[in-house]
Protein backbone atom coordinates (compact mmCIF):
# COMPACT_ATOMS: atom_id res chain seq x y z
CA UNK A 1 0.00 0.00 0.00
CA UNK A 2 1.81 3.17 -1.13
CA UNK A 3 1.64 6.46 0.75
CA UNK A 4 -1.15 8.85 -0.20
CA UNK A 5 -0.83 12.52 -1.05
CA UNK A 6 -3.38 13.72 1.49
CA UNK A 7 -4.52 12.66 4.93
CA UNK A 8 -7.26 13.95 7.14
CA UNK A 9 -6.30 15.32 10.51
CA UNK A 10 -8.47 14.96 13.58
CA UNK A 11 -10.07 17.56 15.76
CA UNK A 12 -10.08 16.28 19.29
CA UNK A 13 -12.30 17.76 21.96
CA UNK A 14 -10.67 17.59 25.34
CA UNK A 15 -11.94 18.07 28.85
CA UNK A 16 -10.48 21.28 30.21
CA UNK A 17 -9.41 21.23 33.87
CA UNK A 18 -11.38 24.46 34.27
CA UNK A 19 -13.91 24.75 31.43
CA UNK A 20 -14.12 28.20 29.87
CA UNK A 21 -17.69 29.46 30.27
CA UNK A 22 -18.90 32.85 29.14
CA UNK A 23 -22.03 34.85 28.46
CA UNK A 24 -22.94 36.63 25.27
CA UNK A 25 -23.11 40.35 26.03
CA UNK A 26 -26.59 40.73 24.50
CA UNK A 27 -28.00 37.41 25.73
CA UNK A 28 -30.68 38.25 28.28
CA UNK A 29 -31.36 34.63 29.24
CA UNK A 30 -28.21 34.53 31.31
CA UNK A 31 -27.30 31.12 29.91
CA UNK A 32 -23.66 30.23 30.15
CA UNK A 33 -21.92 29.14 26.99
CA UNK A 34 -18.95 26.87 26.84
CA UNK A 35 -15.85 27.21 24.71
CA UNK A 36 -14.89 23.75 23.52
CA UNK A 37 -11.25 22.85 23.98
CA UNK A 38 -10.29 21.66 20.52
CA UNK A 39 -6.94 20.29 19.42
CA UNK A 40 -5.63 19.35 16.01
CA UNK A 41 -4.06 15.91 16.17
CA UNK A 42 -2.66 13.20 13.98
CA UNK A 43 -0.99 9.83 14.36
CA UNK A 44 2.80 9.89 14.09
CA UNK A 45 5.06 6.88 13.70
CA UNK A 46 8.79 6.96 14.38
CA UNK A 47 10.51 5.37 11.41
CA UNK A 48 13.92 3.85 11.83
CA UNK A 49 16.67 4.73 9.39
CA UNK A 50 19.02 2.14 10.84
CA UNK A 51 17.43 -0.93 12.39
CA UNK A 52 14.32 -1.23 10.22
CA UNK A 53 11.84 -1.52 13.09
CA UNK A 54 9.27 1.26 13.33
CA UNK A 55 7.26 2.38 16.34
CA UNK A 56 3.55 1.98 16.79
CA UNK A 57 1.91 5.30 15.80
CA UNK A 58 1.25 7.80 18.57
CA UNK A 59 -1.24 10.63 18.79
CA UNK A 60 0.70 13.86 18.30
CA UNK A 61 -0.59 17.39 18.44
CA UNK A 62 -0.12 19.77 15.56
CA UNK A 63 0.61 23.28 16.77
CA UNK A 64 1.57 25.89 14.20
CA UNK A 65 2.24 28.27 17.09
CA UNK A 66 5.22 26.15 18.14
CA UNK A 67 8.28 27.24 16.18
CA UNK A 68 9.59 23.70 15.82
CA UNK A 69 8.61 20.26 17.02
CA UNK A 70 9.14 19.56 20.72
CA UNK A 71 9.20 16.27 22.61
CA UNK A 72 8.85 15.81 26.36
CA UNK A 73 11.85 14.44 28.25
CA UNK A 74 10.88 10.89 29.05
CA UNK A 75 9.20 10.44 25.70
CA UNK A 76 12.27 11.25 23.62
CA UNK A 77 14.46 9.33 26.07
CA UNK A 78 12.41 6.19 25.43
CA UNK A 79 12.52 6.63 21.66
CA UNK A 80 16.23 7.41 21.93
CA UNK A 81 16.70 4.10 23.75
CA UNK A 82 14.91 2.44 20.85
CA UNK A 83 17.29 4.09 18.38
CA UNK A 84 15.00 6.57 16.66
CA UNK A 85 16.78 9.83 17.48
CA UNK A 86 19.79 11.41 15.80
CA UNK A 87 21.35 14.03 18.05
CA UNK A 88 22.58 17.36 16.72
CA UNK A 89 25.00 18.95 19.18
CA UNK A 90 24.27 22.60 19.91
CA UNK A 91 27.06 25.15 19.84
CA UNK A 92 25.79 26.80 23.02
CA UNK A 93 23.21 25.87 25.71
CA UNK A 94 19.63 26.63 24.76
CA UNK A 95 16.66 27.32 27.01
CA UNK A 96 12.93 27.26 26.46
CA UNK A 97 10.02 28.27 28.70
CA UNK A 98 7.16 25.83 28.65
CA UNK A 99 4.10 25.76 30.86
CA UNK A 100 5.72 27.92 33.54
CA UNK A 101 8.91 25.86 33.60
CA UNK A 102 12.23 26.65 32.03
CA UNK A 103 14.16 23.87 30.42
CA UNK A 104 17.37 23.34 28.59
CA UNK A 105 16.97 21.41 25.44
CA UNK A 106 18.93 19.45 22.89
CA UNK A 107 18.27 19.30 19.19
CA UNK A 108 17.57 16.05 17.47
CA UNK A 109 16.21 14.65 14.25
CA UNK A 110 13.59 11.95 13.94
CA UNK A 111 11.87 10.50 10.90
CA UNK A 112 8.12 10.63 11.15
CA UNK A 113 5.30 9.17 9.12
CA UNK A 114 1.81 10.56 9.67
CA UNK A 115 -1.22 8.31 9.58
CA UNK A 116 -4.93 8.56 9.01
CA UNK A 117 -6.57 5.50 10.47
CA UNK A 118 -9.77 4.56 8.65
CA UNK A 119 -12.02 1.56 9.08
CA UNK A 120 -10.40 -1.19 7.05
CA UNK A 121 -7.70 1.08 5.72
CA UNK A 122 -4.73 3.11 6.83
CA UNK A 123 -3.51 6.08 4.83
CA UNK A 124 -0.17 7.70 5.41
CA UNK A 125 2.03 10.43 4.06
CA UNK A 126 5.63 9.75 3.07
CA UNK A 127 8.16 9.74 5.90
CA UNK A 128 9.89 13.07 6.53
CA UNK A 129 12.79 14.21 8.71
CA UNK A 130 11.73 16.35 11.65
CA UNK A 131 14.07 18.53 13.67
CA UNK A 132 12.93 18.67 17.26
CA UNK A 133 13.63 20.20 20.61
CA UNK A 134 14.35 17.42 23.07
CA UNK A 135 13.35 18.92 26.39
CA UNK A 136 15.63 18.24 29.37
CA UNK A 137 13.37 19.23 32.28
CA UNK A 138 11.10 16.32 33.19
CA UNK A 139 8.58 18.70 34.73
CA UNK A 140 7.92 20.47 31.43
CA UNK A 141 4.61 19.21 30.15
CA UNK A 142 3.40 19.97 26.65
CA UNK A 143 -0.20 19.67 25.44
CA UNK A 144 0.87 16.24 24.20
CA UNK A 145 4.18 14.40 24.58
CA UNK A 146 4.94 15.19 20.94
CA UNK A 147 4.09 18.65 19.66
CA UNK A 148 4.49 18.97 15.90
CA UNK A 149 5.65 22.52 15.17
CA UNK A 150 5.69 24.96 12.33
CA UNK A 151 9.19 24.70 10.95
CA UNK A 152 11.59 21.95 9.81
CA UNK A 153 9.06 19.24 10.34
CA UNK A 154 5.92 17.55 9.08
CA UNK A 155 4.64 20.73 7.40
CA UNK A 156 7.66 21.15 5.12
CA UNK A 157 6.61 20.94 1.47
CA UNK A 158 3.04 20.31 2.48
CA UNK A 159 -0.25 22.16 2.46
CA UNK A 160 -2.31 22.39 5.62
CA UNK A 161 -5.94 23.20 4.86
CA UNK A 162 -9.03 23.84 6.91
CA UNK A 163 -12.22 23.24 5.00
CA UNK A 164 -15.34 24.85 6.42
CA UNK A 165 -18.34 22.53 6.25
CA UNK A 166 -21.90 22.96 7.51
CA UNK A 167 -21.68 21.76 11.11
CA UNK A 168 -23.66 18.70 12.13
CA UNK A 169 -26.47 19.76 14.41
CA UNK A 170 -26.91 16.47 16.23
CA UNK A 171 -25.31 16.07 19.66
CA UNK A 172 -21.76 14.74 19.52
CA UNK A 173 -21.88 11.02 20.27
CA UNK A 174 -20.00 10.10 23.41
CA UNK A 175 -17.61 7.94 21.45
CA UNK A 176 -16.56 10.67 19.01
CA UNK A 177 -14.58 13.03 21.23
CA UNK A 178 -11.45 12.06 19.32
CA UNK A 179 -12.83 13.24 15.97
CA UNK A 180 -15.32 16.07 16.31
CA UNK A 181 -14.51 18.33 13.37
CA UNK A 182 -17.83 17.64 11.66
CA UNK A 183 -19.74 19.05 14.65
CA UNK A 184 -17.67 22.22 14.65
CA UNK A 185 -17.94 22.86 10.91
CA UNK A 186 -14.38 22.08 9.94
CA UNK A 187 -12.24 19.46 8.31
CA UNK A 188 -8.47 19.62 8.25
CA UNK A 189 -6.16 18.03 5.74
CA UNK A 190 -2.44 17.76 5.27
CA UNK A 191 -1.29 17.12 1.75
CA UNK A 192 1.87 16.96 -0.29
CA UNK A 193 2.19 20.25 -2.19
Amino acid at each position, binding site marked *: *MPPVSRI*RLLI*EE*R*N*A*AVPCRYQEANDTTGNARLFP*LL*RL*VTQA*QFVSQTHGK*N*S*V*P*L*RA*LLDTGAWITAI*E*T*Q*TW*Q*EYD*REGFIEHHPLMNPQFAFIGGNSTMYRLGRVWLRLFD*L*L*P*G*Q*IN*WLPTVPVICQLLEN*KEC*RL*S*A*PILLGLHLGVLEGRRLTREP*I*PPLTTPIP*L*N*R*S*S*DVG*AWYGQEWYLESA
Partner: protein
Amino acid sequence: MSEPVTTESPELPGFDCNASAELQELLNQLPLRAIAAFKLRCEKRREPLQRLKQLQLEMFAVGVTGYNSSAMNGKPATPGLLTVADRARDEEIAASSDLKNLLNLKLGKSGELGEPIRWNDPRLGSLWPDGTSECYAKVERARQELEDKLKQLSNPNEPNEDAELHPQIGEWRKLEEMFTEGKLNEYRGEFIIWANGEVFGHGRKLLSVRLQAEKMAEARGISPDQLINYFVSGE
Protein backbone atom coordinates in the same frame (compact mmCIF):
# COMPACT_ATOMS: atom_id res chain seq x y z
CA MET B 1 -10.25 54.02 -20.96
CA SER B 2 -10.65 50.61 -22.60
CA GLU B 3 -11.74 50.29 -26.17
CA PRO B 4 -14.84 48.32 -27.12
CA VAL B 5 -13.80 44.75 -27.93
CA THR B 6 -17.11 43.03 -28.62
CA THR B 7 -20.66 43.77 -29.50
CA GLU B 8 -22.09 40.32 -28.72
CA SER B 9 -24.63 39.97 -25.96
CA PRO B 10 -23.05 38.13 -23.01
CA GLU B 11 -24.48 34.71 -22.26
CA LEU B 12 -26.29 34.33 -18.97
CA PRO B 13 -24.97 31.24 -17.23
CA GLY B 14 -27.76 28.68 -17.06
CA PHE B 15 -30.81 30.30 -15.46
CA ASP B 16 -34.47 29.61 -15.86
CA CYS B 17 -35.85 31.37 -18.98
CA ASN B 18 -38.62 33.28 -17.19
CA ALA B 19 -36.35 34.84 -14.65
CA SER B 20 -33.44 35.44 -16.90
CA ALA B 21 -34.85 38.40 -18.85
CA GLU B 22 -34.30 40.83 -15.99
CA LEU B 23 -30.90 39.38 -15.18
CA GLN B 24 -29.92 39.46 -18.83
CA GLU B 25 -30.76 43.13 -19.01
CA LEU B 26 -28.50 43.85 -16.04
CA LEU B 27 -25.75 41.66 -17.45
CA ASN B 28 -25.86 43.47 -20.79
CA GLN B 29 -24.86 46.67 -19.04
CA LEU B 30 -21.65 45.30 -17.58
CA PRO B 31 -18.13 45.50 -19.05
CA LEU B 32 -16.40 42.24 -19.93
CA ARG B 33 -14.23 41.81 -16.86
CA ALA B 34 -17.21 42.36 -14.62
CA ILE B 35 -19.13 39.73 -16.62
CA ALA B 36 -16.26 37.30 -16.12
CA ALA B 37 -16.29 37.99 -12.37
CA PHE B 38 -20.05 37.48 -12.32
CA LYS B 39 -19.82 34.16 -14.18
CA LEU B 40 -17.11 33.02 -11.86
CA ARG B 41 -19.27 33.80 -8.85
CA CYS B 42 -22.09 31.75 -10.39
CA GLU B 43 -19.62 28.87 -10.86
CA LYS B 44 -18.37 29.20 -7.32
CA ARG B 45 -21.90 28.92 -5.99
CA ARG B 46 -22.33 25.70 -7.94
CA GLU B 47 -19.03 24.12 -6.87
CA PRO B 48 -20.55 21.96 -4.11
CA LEU B 49 -23.01 20.57 -6.62
CA GLN B 50 -20.20 19.78 -9.06
CA ARG B 51 -18.25 18.05 -6.33
CA LEU B 52 -21.34 16.07 -5.32
CA LYS B 53 -21.77 14.89 -8.90
CA GLN B 54 -18.14 13.77 -9.01
CA LEU B 55 -18.58 11.82 -5.80
CA GLN B 56 -21.77 10.19 -7.07
CA LEU B 57 -19.93 9.14 -10.21
CA GLU B 58 -17.20 7.67 -8.08
CA MET B 59 -19.70 5.78 -5.91
CA PHE B 60 -21.25 4.32 -9.05
CA ALA B 61 -17.82 3.52 -10.52
CA VAL B 62 -16.64 1.64 -7.44
CA GLY B 63 -19.87 -0.34 -7.29
CA VAL B 64 -21.59 1.02 -4.21
CA THR B 65 -25.20 -0.13 -4.06
CA GLY B 66 -27.76 2.65 -4.46
CA TYR B 67 -25.85 4.67 -7.04
CA ASN B 68 -26.82 4.28 -10.64
CA SER B 69 -25.68 5.53 -13.98
CA SER B 70 -27.84 8.68 -13.84
CA ALA B 71 -24.81 10.39 -12.34
CA MET B 72 -23.17 10.04 -15.75
CA ASN B 73 -25.77 12.35 -17.28
CA GLY B 74 -24.73 15.11 -14.96
CA LYS B 75 -27.82 14.78 -12.81
CA PRO B 76 -27.59 14.38 -9.04
CA ALA B 77 -28.52 10.78 -8.25
CA THR B 78 -30.49 11.80 -5.19
CA PRO B 79 -33.78 13.29 -6.35
CA GLY B 80 -35.41 15.41 -3.71
CA LEU B 81 -32.08 16.63 -2.45
CA LEU B 82 -32.84 19.87 -4.16
CA THR B 83 -35.41 20.80 -6.71
CA VAL B 84 -34.49 22.72 -9.81
CA ALA B 85 -37.02 25.40 -8.88
CA ASP B 86 -35.56 25.91 -5.41
CA ARG B 87 -32.03 25.97 -6.71
CA ALA B 88 -32.91 28.38 -9.51
CA ARG B 89 -34.67 30.72 -7.10
CA ASP B 90 -31.74 30.85 -4.70
CA GLU B 91 -29.24 31.26 -7.50
CA GLU B 92 -31.23 34.03 -9.12
CA ILE B 93 -31.50 35.99 -5.91
CA ALA B 94 -27.75 35.75 -5.47
CA ALA B 95 -27.06 36.52 -9.12
CA SER B 96 -29.32 39.53 -9.09
CA SER B 97 -27.51 40.87 -6.04
CA ASP B 98 -24.15 40.32 -7.76
CA LEU B 99 -25.23 42.11 -10.91
CA LYS B 100 -26.57 45.11 -9.01
CA ASN B 101 -23.40 45.33 -6.92
CA LEU B 102 -21.23 45.11 -10.02
CA LEU B 103 -23.23 47.83 -11.75
CA ASN B 104 -22.99 50.07 -8.69
CA LEU B 105 -19.22 49.81 -8.82
CA LYS B 106 -19.28 51.52 -12.23
CA LEU B 107 -16.45 49.41 -13.63
CA GLY B 108 -16.98 50.45 -17.22
CA LYS B 109 -19.39 50.36 -20.12
CA SER B 110 -20.94 47.41 -21.87
CA GLY B 111 -18.62 45.95 -24.49
CA GLU B 112 -15.49 47.45 -22.93
CA LEU B 113 -12.94 45.50 -20.91
CA GLY B 114 -13.65 47.64 -17.89
CA GLU B 115 -11.79 47.91 -14.59
CA PRO B 116 -10.24 44.70 -13.24
CA ILE B 117 -12.28 43.10 -10.47
CA ARG B 118 -11.80 39.96 -8.46
CA TRP B 119 -14.69 37.55 -8.03
CA ASN B 120 -14.32 37.73 -4.26
CA ASP B 121 -13.95 41.49 -4.00
CA PRO B 122 -15.40 42.36 -0.58
CA ARG B 123 -17.55 45.07 -2.16
CA LEU B 124 -19.55 42.31 -3.84
CA GLY B 125 -20.53 40.78 -0.52
CA SER B 126 -20.82 37.08 0.22
CA LEU B 127 -21.67 34.55 -2.50
CA TRP B 128 -25.04 34.02 -0.83
CA PRO B 129 -26.28 37.45 0.27
CA ASP B 130 -29.14 35.95 2.30
CA GLY B 131 -26.94 33.34 3.94
CA THR B 132 -26.01 30.00 2.41
CA SER B 133 -28.83 28.66 0.33
CA GLU B 134 -30.69 25.87 2.12
CA CYS B 135 -30.49 23.82 -1.07
CA TYR B 136 -26.75 24.15 -1.16
CA ALA B 137 -26.42 23.48 2.54
CA LYS B 138 -28.18 20.16 1.82
CA VAL B 139 -25.82 19.52 -1.07
CA GLU B 140 -22.88 20.26 1.20
CA ARG B 141 -24.14 17.80 3.81
CA ALA B 142 -24.67 15.14 1.14
CA ARG B 143 -21.17 15.83 -0.19
CA GLN B 144 -19.76 15.40 3.28
CA GLU B 145 -21.53 12.07 3.75
CA LEU B 146 -20.25 10.75 0.44
CA GLU B 147 -16.69 11.90 1.16
CA ASP B 148 -16.87 9.97 4.43
CA LYS B 149 -18.32 6.88 2.78
CA LEU B 150 -15.67 6.89 0.08
CA LYS B 151 -12.90 7.27 2.61
CA GLN B 152 -14.18 4.21 4.42
CA LEU B 153 -14.24 1.99 1.36
CA SER B 154 -11.30 -0.32 1.27
CA ASN B 155 -9.75 -1.08 -2.07
CA PRO B 156 -10.54 -4.74 -2.81
CA ASN B 157 -7.53 -4.98 -5.10
CA GLU B 158 -5.10 -4.10 -2.38
CA PRO B 159 -3.74 -6.66 0.04
CA ASN B 160 -4.04 -5.88 3.72
CA GLU B 161 -0.56 -4.68 4.49
CA ASP B 162 -1.20 -3.37 7.96
CA ALA B 163 1.33 -5.82 9.29
CA GLU B 164 4.02 -4.27 7.14
CA LEU B 165 3.59 -0.99 8.98
CA HIS B 166 4.11 -2.61 12.34
CA PRO B 167 3.53 -6.11 13.67
CA GLN B 168 1.31 -4.72 16.45
CA ILE B 169 -0.85 -2.56 14.21
CA GLY B 170 -3.90 -4.70 14.99
CA GLU B 171 -3.45 -4.09 18.71
CA TRP B 172 -3.03 -0.39 18.01
CA ARG B 173 -6.31 -0.39 16.12
CA LYS B 174 -7.99 -2.05 19.07
CA LEU B 175 -6.61 0.64 21.39
CA GLU B 176 -7.78 3.37 19.04
CA GLU B 177 -11.27 1.91 19.13
CA MET B 178 -11.22 1.72 22.91
CA PHE B 179 -10.02 5.31 23.12
CA THR B 180 -12.74 6.48 20.76
CA GLU B 181 -15.35 4.63 22.79
CA GLY B 182 -14.14 6.33 25.95
CA LYS B 183 -12.88 3.10 27.50
CA LEU B 184 -9.46 4.56 28.24
CA ASN B 185 -10.69 7.73 29.90
CA GLU B 186 -9.03 6.90 33.21
CA TYR B 187 -5.64 7.16 31.44
CA ARG B 188 -6.22 10.51 29.76
CA GLY B 189 -2.98 12.44 29.36
CA GLU B 190 -0.89 9.34 30.02
CA PHE B 191 0.87 6.60 28.15
CA ILE B 192 -0.30 3.08 28.67
CA ILE B 193 1.98 0.17 27.98
CA TRP B 194 -0.14 -2.56 26.48
CA ALA B 195 0.15 -6.14 25.32
CA ASN B 196 -2.33 -8.97 24.80
CA GLY B 197 -5.30 -6.91 25.96
CA GLU B 198 -3.66 -5.90 29.21
CA VAL B 199 -2.20 -2.68 30.62
CA PHE B 200 1.30 -3.29 31.99
CA GLY B 201 1.89 0.25 33.18
CA HIS B 202 0.69 3.80 32.75
CA GLY B 203 1.90 7.34 33.33
CA ARG B 204 3.16 10.40 31.51
CA LYS B 205 6.83 9.66 32.06
CA LEU B 206 7.26 7.16 29.29
CA LEU B 207 10.77 5.90 29.92
CA SER B 208 10.14 5.07 33.61
CA VAL B 209 6.76 3.50 32.90
CA ARG B 210 8.09 1.50 30.02
CA LEU B 211 11.08 0.09 31.92
CA GLN B 212 8.82 -1.04 34.74
CA ALA B 213 6.33 -2.53 32.31
CA GLU B 214 9.07 -4.45 30.51
CA LYS B 215 10.11 -6.06 33.79
CA MET B 216 6.52 -7.03 34.55
CA ALA B 217 6.02 -8.40 31.07
CA GLU B 218 9.24 -10.41 31.12
CA ALA B 219 8.24 -11.96 34.41
CA ARG B 220 5.09 -13.13 32.64
CA GLY B 221 7.03 -14.48 29.66
CA ILE B 222 6.02 -11.62 27.35
CA SER B 223 8.73 -10.20 25.13
CA PRO B 224 9.29 -6.40 25.37
CA ASP B 225 8.84 -6.34 21.58
CA GLN B 226 5.16 -7.11 22.11
CA LEU B 227 4.59 -4.07 24.33
CA ILE B 228 2.94 -1.06 22.72
CA ASN B 229 3.36 2.52 23.90
CA TYR B 230 -0.02 4.11 23.45
CA PHE B 231 -0.70 7.72 24.35
CA VAL B 232 -4.22 8.47 25.55
CA SER B 233 -4.89 12.06 24.54
CA GLY B 234 -6.35 14.43 27.03
CA GLU B 235 -5.61 17.26 29.37
